[in-house]
């Protein structure tokens, strides 16, 4: 006979269950809140930014002759002329020079409208001249107004004409900077980590170095900008605003990230792999090169990609070395003045015209998708190749 054992929950047990439920509810609440912020951020960015990916275009007749080459805005009928972006008129003399047979002809083309027209059509502003509105509506009813893909957003550089502004020079600048960061911080970082993890004796000195490296990863990035300004630009004379200066400065920030992740990857390789190799007569370096490094490579690459992605999104240190600049034409070398994606976003966000608001949001979307791609690559790399022991 069981001596009065009941298997239904006692009062105390019920209390414990309630506490458990409460705790679970807090956690779910926190998660929901975090997700809500994220969703809010993304919907807002997409809502503001998506319209910048398309642009209003108007079909017009363009006349090329002696006069219109001089007074380019006369190449289009007078009442339509103010609707078209200045960026096109500027290209007329060049176009005629390149194709002399255009002289004296008239062609029908879809041309990018001004930012005012674009903003008006997208419903962001109503401050369009009533006369122009009337013309626009008439053209619209004739089917001569539509949206086209804003290829300029990707393939033209920055511009003071909002309808002509794009991310190209920032892309090129970012690319150069990333190349510099990769070339500088990857070899130095990996070599440092290998030395610290595999060769260095464990003493006060190396412990001090270790603490300092960990601290470096936590130093506010603006200070790295000051350091870069003092060392690379003032001392070594690297050209100001150049991709080289930016890359070197950002390398200082990426280095600790790469060192720390490489050390973690090396540490994850079990000791008996090293011992096994050395027991058959491999030297220390051979054991590392042939066995430890191949095993830790996925971890090292993951850390490097994350470090590069961080550098790619960094703006503050670049403020100090002059990379927040107006760069209409993409740089063609490492030493020319350049700007990078986040810096371009920063520049646009400070512009007064309404059209730059959409451009800023679009720039953010482009930058975010690049960073998400990079980080996803890192995650995939880690999941696919990481070996667990």
């Amino acid at each position: 006979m069981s001596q009065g054992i009941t298997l239904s929950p006692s009062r105390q047990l019920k209390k414990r269950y309630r506490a458990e439920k409460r705790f679970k509810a807090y956690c779910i609440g926190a998660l929901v809140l975090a997700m809500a912020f994220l969703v809010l951020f993304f919907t807002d960015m997409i809502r503001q930014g998506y319209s910048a990916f398309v642009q209003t275009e108007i079909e017009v007749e363009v006349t090329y002759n002696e006069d219109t080459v001089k007074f380019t805005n006369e190449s289009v009928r007078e009442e339509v002329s103010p609707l078209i972006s200045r960026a096109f008129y500027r290209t007329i003399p060049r176009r005629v020079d390149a194709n002399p047979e255009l002289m004296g002809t008239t062609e029908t083309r879809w041309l990018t409208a001004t930012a005012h027209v674009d903003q008006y059509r997208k419903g962001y502003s109503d401050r369009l001249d009533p006369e122009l509105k009337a013309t626009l509506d008439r053209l619209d009813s004739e089917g001569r107004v539509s949206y086209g893909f804003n290829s300029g957003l990707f393939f033209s550089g920055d511009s003071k004409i909002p309808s002509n502004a794009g991310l190209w020079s920032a892309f090129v600048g970012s690319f150069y900077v990333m190349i510099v960061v990769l070339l500088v911080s990857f070899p130095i970082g990996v070599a440092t980590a290998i030395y610290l993890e595999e060769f260095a004796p464990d003493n006060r000195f190396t412990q001090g170095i270790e603490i300092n490296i960990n601290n470096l990863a936590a130093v506010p990035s603006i200070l790295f900008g000051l350091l870069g300004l003092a060392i690379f630009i003032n001392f070594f004379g690297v050209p100001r605003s150049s991709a080289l200066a930016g890359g070197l400065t950002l390398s200082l920030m990426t280095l600790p990230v790469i060192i720390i992740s490489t050390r973690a990857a090396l540490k994850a390789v079990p000791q008996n792999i090293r011992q096994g190799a050395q027991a058959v007569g491999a030297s220390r370096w051979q054991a590392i090169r042939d066995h430890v490094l191949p095993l830790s490579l996925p971890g090292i690459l993951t850390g490097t990609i994350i470090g590069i992605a961080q550098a790619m999104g960094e703006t503050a240190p670049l403020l100090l070395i002059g990379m927040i600049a107006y760069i209409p034409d993409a740089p063609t070398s490492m030493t020319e003045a350049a700007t990078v994606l986040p810096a371009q976003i920063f520049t646009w966000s400070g512009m007064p015209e309404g059209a730059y608001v959409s451009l800023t949001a679009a720039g953010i979307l482009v930058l975010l998708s690049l960073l998400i791609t990079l980080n996803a690559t890192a995650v995939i790399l880690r999941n696919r190749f990481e070996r667990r022991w």
Partner: protein
Amino acid sequence: MRTRDLTGDSTQVVRVPTTERPRVNQKTKMKVRDLEVWYGEKQALHGVSMDVAENEVTALIGPSGCGKSTFLRCLNRMNDLIPDVRIKGEVEFENQNIYAPEVDVVELRSHIGMVFQKPNPFPKSIYDNIAYAPKILGQVRKRTDMEDLVEHSLKRAGLWEEVKDRLQMPGLSLSGGQQQRLCIARAIAVSPSVLLMDEPCSALDPVATATVEQLIDELKENYTIVIVTHNLQQAARVAGYTAFFHLGNIVEYSDTDSLFTHPREKKTEDYITGRYG
């Protein structure tokens, strides 16, 4: 053929006190004299002396922490890899003290191979596991020679029949017992003269253990084997000589039969009868 800078004749017959030298009339392969080891402040070996007989299996037994693994790892200087270790005394191999400054550890370890407690094949193919060391040591250059060597080593380790059709498979895809035999094949591929085994069967099931033990028995024809084991039956089965370690000293060292049937020391008797653990 590679050059042996550790050459010398080991044909001399030495007579030493019983703890060092259990039986006469057998060639000595390695002579250990007054070996002391410290890990930081902690002394792990207190002046151990011992002779290792050639082409025999010598077992090292004793409770955990008695210094038997430390002793084993001194024989190919694997202890050098541990930070904060201090080693005093002499280990003579091929008439040279392996702790002499002119001795190169990498060279030494190609003559004294080691098999570890946990099978640790390289994360490479079965073929590359064997071929790695002869390649980096420059012992084999031609591809056909290497294939012969891989086959020969795997045959010696009794693994050839099981893996001959899948040499390009990763070594880690083998079972535990096969992995351990792969590690033995890897160790003998560089033709060492001494094989050190640190509890080679402790991670294996009884069937795999029996296979490895049989292999050890066959290998002693060509190799001098020193094996650390926690399994007393195993020592009794495979070893010609057995040394009982306790608290960093050798308590008793003699031929296996006498040690297990007529131990001279009380401590040894307690340990082998299980009264002491």
